[in-house]
């Protein structure tokens, strides 16, 4: 596994010994990337071919497995008539609103528990008990209390984001190394300086991890609620297709669900990379 024969010659490449060798090494340097690119395709292609064959020769009923062309056509149709976009926008709005609320409360709770042991003593046990019940466990209770309107989705999505954000913020602040605080004291930092210049920068990576988890969980929870109780949104589109036995609609919507989840996580990863640039600059 580790004995990967990586071409470890870039140093000699800088010597103008021979132009031919130089070229070969340059090629060897980007060969792994090319190899990865080439090897990524056979497996999905094989599945695709198998899928095409299975649906064309009707090894399984077309209601269960539509042909790839049907799915593509449906995808195009849904894109053109705006179904995909309008439902996607609704889901997107819900996840952002719920996540914003949940992450905000989670951050406040986490900071409170991290900074004040007294607050932690009072709140943490109840918070842990609350976190033991998965988001979906609260769903029936919430449905009875607030109905199946917009509020239900926002609250559930907020809950899904709250728990990981609060937990990671708390742990992140709690595990700030004591040495950092000592140094700050030597410099005579005020309380605000301590928080802004030492505690939060040090806890940030962990907090951000919680934020990313929170967003992933939010998206997961939202799709689940939309599958269960909604008349619009991507989850609803999936249920709708399922009820009409239109697997092409289901598959198209599933693809979009995956894409939105991917984009949401990628955006947070990019923000993280940008915010943490200072870490590399320090050395």
């Amino acid at each position, binding site marked *: *596994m*580790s*004995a*990967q024969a990586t071409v470890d010659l870039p140093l000699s490449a800088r010597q103008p010994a021979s132009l031919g060798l130089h070229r070969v090494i340059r090629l060897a340097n980007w060969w792994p990337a090319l*190899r990865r690119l080439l*090897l*990524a395709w*056979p*497996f*999905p292609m094989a*599945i695709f071919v198998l899928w095409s064959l299975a649906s064309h020769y009707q090894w399984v009923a077309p*209601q*269960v497995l539509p042909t790839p062309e049907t799915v593509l056509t449906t995808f195009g149709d849904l894109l053109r008539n705006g179904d995909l976009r309008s439902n996607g926008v609704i889901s997107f709005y819900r996840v952002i609103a719920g996540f914003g609320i949940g992450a905000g409360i989670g951050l406040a709770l986490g900071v409170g528990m*991290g*900074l*004040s*042991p*007294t607050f932690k*003593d*009072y*709140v*943490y*046990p*109840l918070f842990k*008990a609350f976190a*033991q*019940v*998965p988001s*979906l*466990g*609260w*769903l*029936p*209770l919430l449905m*009875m209390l607030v109905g199946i309107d917009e509020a239900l989705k926002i609250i559930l999505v907020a809950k899904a984001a709250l728990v990981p954000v609060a937990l990671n913020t708390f742990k992140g*602040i*709690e595990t*700030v190394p*004591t040495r950092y*605080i000592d140094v700050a*004291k030597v410099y005579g930092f005020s*309380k605000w300086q*301590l928080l802004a210049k030492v505690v939060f920068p040090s806890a940030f990576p962990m907090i951000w991890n919680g934020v990313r988890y929170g967003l992933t969980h939010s*998206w*997961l929870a939202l*799709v*689940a609620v939309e*599958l*269960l109780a909604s008349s619009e949104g991507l*989850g609803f589109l999936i249920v709708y297709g*399922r009820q009409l*036995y239109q*697997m092409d609609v*289901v598959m198209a*919507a*599933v693809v979009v*669900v*995956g*894409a939105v*989840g991917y984009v949401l996580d990628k955006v947070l990863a990019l923000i993280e990379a940008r915010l943490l640039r200072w870490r590399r600059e320090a050395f």
Partner: protein
Amino acid sequence: MTASTINTNLASVNESNRKSPLRYLHPATIPKPLRGWVIPALLLILWWATYRFGWTQSQLFVPISKVWETAVRLSSTGELWQSLAASLARDLVGFVIGSLIGLLVGGALGLSRLLEDLIGPTFHTLKQISLFAWIPLISLWFGLGDAAKVAFLALAAFFPVVLNSFEGIRSVPREYIEVARVFAYSRTQLLTRVVLPAALPSIFTGVYLALIYAWLATLGAEYLLTSGLGIGNLLTDGREHFWMDYVILGVIVVGIVGFLLNWIASRVEARLLRWRGRSVAQF
């Protein structure tokens, strides 16, 4: 610890409040072990008082005693235990199948770069699809019965196990492998004595996550594939008939099960990884 440092700063502020007769009500005067019980106790008192003094006429409001009566009734008729057993059995079977397949796939991806290049990209793409979006597809392919539920649970457990066992194997330090080479370990020895123990903590993280996801998925599967017994069905029944006592009981049971699963997993993990704590002391 940040918290204690910041608290010493706060202590000086509190000094001035010492003379106040209200000082006995200050949150810091209640003994530490009792603090976690304060908020839950207040909430319970509020619940009880709401019933006692008739502050609400809402149909949704049920007194604590009613929840308790329902719990006693359902457990004496065995309905609660049957639902619980059905859910747990499903959870366990799906979890075991998913984890085992996940271990195999994760191990294979970790040990072979060729397989990683072939299957990895497809896996990472599929991983993006929100878990519950699979349910409509699974229900068409496997029906609405236990087979579909177990397949869905296995899928929920599969992803975290693959990811973490792959990461675990890939992050085995190169030095370990070199030492094993010096000792002329065979391939099996290398795997069982070096790679597996070094990757075990990460693999365990994956299994742990799988356990949590599988429980979440159990609820989701029971809501969405409504057939047969289960805690999810109990909750759905309660909601449909507006039996708040059923729903509250269900939420509590779901929380307790989640807590117990967590606790068992952390125990097993601590036990299996005990050797790590001692290994330093032996030298």
